[in-house]
């Protein structure tokens, strides 16, 4: 499923680190019950279903939705969120044949769209998400 390669690549990127994306602010989950304790922007990686086989024959990619949240009390400037999402997109789209510690290799990643400017009333953040499709293989 290639989780490791995606997460490790995002965490290893110096530009993303300088934008506040590091191991304390990047989570893998379908939603969050409460805002993380650190008062900084945070990123949520939501691995979704694999989708149906394409034309019944081709292995489908796995969908992943990446949310970038910025606490309302810090900023309501969506351009900061866009900067993080732009960098995440560049990093992911550059991934070709990258092997992760979990034994899966990413064949390629495709961007499939971004949300409008959103406000998360549950976590009290301004946020946007970007969706990607990750095609991976398990090397024998």
């Amino acid at each position: 499923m290639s989780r490791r390669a995606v997460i490790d690549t995002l965490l290893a990127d110096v530009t993303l680190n300088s934008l506040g994306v590091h191991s304390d602010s990047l989570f893998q989950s379908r939603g969050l019950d409460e805002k993380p304790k650190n008062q900084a922007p945070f990123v949520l990686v939501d691995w979704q279903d694999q989708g149906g086989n394409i034309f019944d024959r081709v292995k489908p990619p796995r969908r992943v939705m990446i949310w970038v949240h910025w606490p309302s009390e810090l900023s309501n400037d969506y351009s900061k969120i866009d900067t993080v999402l732009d960098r995440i997109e560049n990093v992911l789209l550059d991934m070709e044949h990258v092997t992760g510690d979990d034994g899966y290799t990413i064949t390629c990643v495709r961007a499939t769209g971004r949300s409008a400017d959103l406000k998360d009333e549950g976590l009290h953040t301004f946020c946007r998400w970007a969706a990607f499709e990750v095609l991976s293989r398990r090397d024998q």
Partner: protein
Amino acid sequence: MTWPSSGQKKIQTRVANIDSAMAKIIAGQFLYAEGEATAIMKEGAPWTDRSGNARAGLFAKASFYDNAFELLLAHSVYYGIFLEVANSGKYAIILPTVQHMGDLLIARMERAMSRLEGLL
């Protein structure tokens, strides 16, 4: 080389029929998906009901414009956007259903088109 005029007419008629048959297939798939998507959303909505209005208000509607086909999925309650976004999409049901129905529709239309090709 020229086509016999009767043969050309036959081909034109058959091509015109393909378009019409294809449009009927797609429209049929979208109309079927209407009820199916509504049921999937109502059954799969991940929140705990209080009034039940949010779950009851989920609906899907198929629309056709010329050569465009659309399946609209929506909430009826004003706080639907809250459910879709809050806690980073923890209670979202529209987008997961859009993705699921998109895959289903593509797969079904592909099979229907293969069958149509076999008949021609």
